[in-house]
């Protein structure tokens, strides 16, 4: 209650209840008391309610056998695994879908954001229509659209759409050959890693030469051919230690290979298309914020259109875009919890859904889930802040 009045020396003539420091102390104690009372009220009621209803408390369930299966697991999991294991499966699924969607949403968003500024009227308008539609339709509806409206219409396994390279597309998802790495695969891998390191050194050297002489030695072609060529040669020399487990049509669905389930695919597409619209707006805002003089100046310096965007506009626009992207990534991570509506086994689905139902311990499940999202949010924030510092203008 004392914006800007702190510094005033306390006047002995002021009655004590008009003394700003005493008043401030009083109100704070009052507020603190209220908060404590509220928490105590909730805590006391919860404890007595749980005891009266004979509901178990605590985290003893964590090591108990879960007994149910999960459709998509990144770590080994079976019905004999524990609830705790199920938690990690759900959490990893949430992180996987968030990371993949963030990747695609950024690409799509940047493209659409740039298209919105296209000089082609039709392209710009189409991009605008896209942005307005996806920004103003609830995400849940978009997910239903992709899951039921688009992927639900794919053919049954027997009539799978056959794509090149033994890839099958049907209602069960996208089935792909699964690479099986032989023991000798380590050699081409070593070759690859070492050539990449060599390429990086070459690149660094080329820049040094350019800085000194103004001419850049063309190391790009050499490094590229080396990075691709050498591992290939080593690969064939070591006897092609890579085979593919190709999906084969079985009685029900093709077995073998890798499957991207439609729940995952539609959640990724849904989150990507939705978030891309927001990112596009941020990108546009960032580009528009750069004054036209920058473009004109770089043209006057003889930079090509591509160079202008790459070397002049984007580095400056990024400073505006990155903080905005941060909040988009955060909301994407949080929005991934909507996967529960289309059966994607994310954290909310597995933990706040099935596990909560089997154990009945609502307080523990919901609190843990909330804490996990809070942590994910803080981590994403921290990473983006670090990235932001890197692209921010270095002020001397």
């Amino acid at each position, binding site marked *: *209650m*004392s*914006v*800007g*009045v*702190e510094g005033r020396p306390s006047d002995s003539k002021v009655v004590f209840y008009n003394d700003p420091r005493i008043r*401030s102390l009083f*109100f*704070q*104690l009052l*507020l*603190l008391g209220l*908060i404590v009372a509220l928490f105590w*009220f*909730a805590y006391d*009621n*919860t404890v*007595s*309610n*749980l005891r*009266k209803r004979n509901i178990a408390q605590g985290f003893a369930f964590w090591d108990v056998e879960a007994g149910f299966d999960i459709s998509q697991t990144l770590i080994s999991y079976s019905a004999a695994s524990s609830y705790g294991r199920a938690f990690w499966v759900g959490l990893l699924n949430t992180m996987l879908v968030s990371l993949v969607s963030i990747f695609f949403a950024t690409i799509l968003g940047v493209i659409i954001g740039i298209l919105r500024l296209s*000089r*082609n*009227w*039709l*392209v710009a308008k*189409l991009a605008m229509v896209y942005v307005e539609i996806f920004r*103003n*339709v*609830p*995400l*849940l*509806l978009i997910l239903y659209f992709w899951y039921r409206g688009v992927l639900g219409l794919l053919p049954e396994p027997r009539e799978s759409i056959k794509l090149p390279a033994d890839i099958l597309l049907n209602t069960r998802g996208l089935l792909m050959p699964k690479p099986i790495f032989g023991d000798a695969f380590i050699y081409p891998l070593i070759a690859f890693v070492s050539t990449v390191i060599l390429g990086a050194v070459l690149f660094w050297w080329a820049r040094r030469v350019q800085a000194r002489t103004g001419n850049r030695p063309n190391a790009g072609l050499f490094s590229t051919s080396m990075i691709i060529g050498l591992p290939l040669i080593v690969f064939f020399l070591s006897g092609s230690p890579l085979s593919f487990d190709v999906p084969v049509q079985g009685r029900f669905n093709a077995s073998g290979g890798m499957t991207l389930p439609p729940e995952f695919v539609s959640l990724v597409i849904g989150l990507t298309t939705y978030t891309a619209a927001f990112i596009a707006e941020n990108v546009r805002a960032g580009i528009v914020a750069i004054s036209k003089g920058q473009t004109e100046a770089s043209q006057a310096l003889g930079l090509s259109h591509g160079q202008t965007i790459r070397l002049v506009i984007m580095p400056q626009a990024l400073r505006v875009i990155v903080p905005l992207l941060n909040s988009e990534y*955060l909301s994407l991570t*949080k*929005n991934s*919890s*909507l996967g*529960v*509506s289309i059966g994607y086994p994310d954290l*909310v689905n597995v933990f*706040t859904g099935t596990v*909560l139902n089997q154990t009945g311990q*609502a*307080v523990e499940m*919901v609190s843990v*889930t*909330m804490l996990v*999202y*809070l942590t994910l*949010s*803080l981590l994403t924030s921290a990473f983006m802040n670090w990235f932001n510092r890197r692209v921010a203008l270095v002020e001397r």
Partner: protein
Amino acid sequence: MSGQAELKFIRSHFSDPLPPPMRTSGIFHWARENLFSSVFNSVLTILILFGLYQVIPGMIDRLIITAVWTANSSKDCNAELLGHPVGVCWGFVNAHWGYFVFGQYPEHLRWRPELFFVLEALGLAWLLVPSIPRKDWAMIYFFIIFPIVAFFLLNGSETLGLTPVQTHFWGGFLVSIVIGTVGIVISVPVGILLALGRRSHMPVARSASVVMIEFIRGVPLITVLFMANVMFPLFVPEGWRPDPLLRVLVGVALFFSAYMAETVRGGLQAIPRGQYEAAQALGLSYWQMMVKIILPQALKIVIPGIVNNFIGLLKDTTLVAIVNIFDFLKVIEASLNNPVWRLSQRLATDHRH
């Protein structure tokens, strides 16, 4: 003097006319400038036009020409039974319109939610259209009078002679709007308090506001709804039975208060320090300064932000379907499960037996 005549040159014929300048107006110039400015752009334009040509006639056909406008069951929209291709079954929407808008709200009492919609629209227009005067009254109307009237109107009250309608009869668009309205009516004042708390010099108020705002903004709405749904009943003494809709409303209001607080904080930060100092110099108390000087200016700045929040809020009301509240999305789902609209195939086969 004679040389003068020799220097004279009189052109004896007109030079060829220059080509006319490029048109700078008209449709051709516009098209050349905006659609065909380069080879790449021209190719792009032609591709897009071709794509639109492929999609739009089919859409018009399905949406309007072959669509069925009135239907009593899915039989009326069945292409096999009708013997001609059928587009969108608008008849389904037509037959369920009342259900979509009001849910199971008793039909003879539907004037009450209708009146509620009108009152809400009036309040919003008064608040948001700049040319309508007396915004202070508009605030009092929308944030105090309207919610109380709306509560008695929708819920009913024996003493006022309005038949009570329990919340499990409410549904559809009505529920979406109720959630949105309660969200905005609660979250604006609570958001302002939180924003003031966050900028306060009192450490307790500041840290309490920061923790609450950052906690809520860090978790998805759906977990807040789960919390409201399964944990809230445990927080209150046994025997209190918070209504399911009320629980969701608490969750939504809490959630959007945090977002509103951040929006309002933006407005507060934009007010120059001189305004605070001038108010203090005049001897205004903290609340006088806020209510009379700072907030009127800050809120005016953040009106677009508040409207954005409101739109986001309306979109997010769809999530309540996940915790089993019959909002707009859920009633559409439910009516799709209605046997009359799903069993048609079976009825058709039954005739054959």
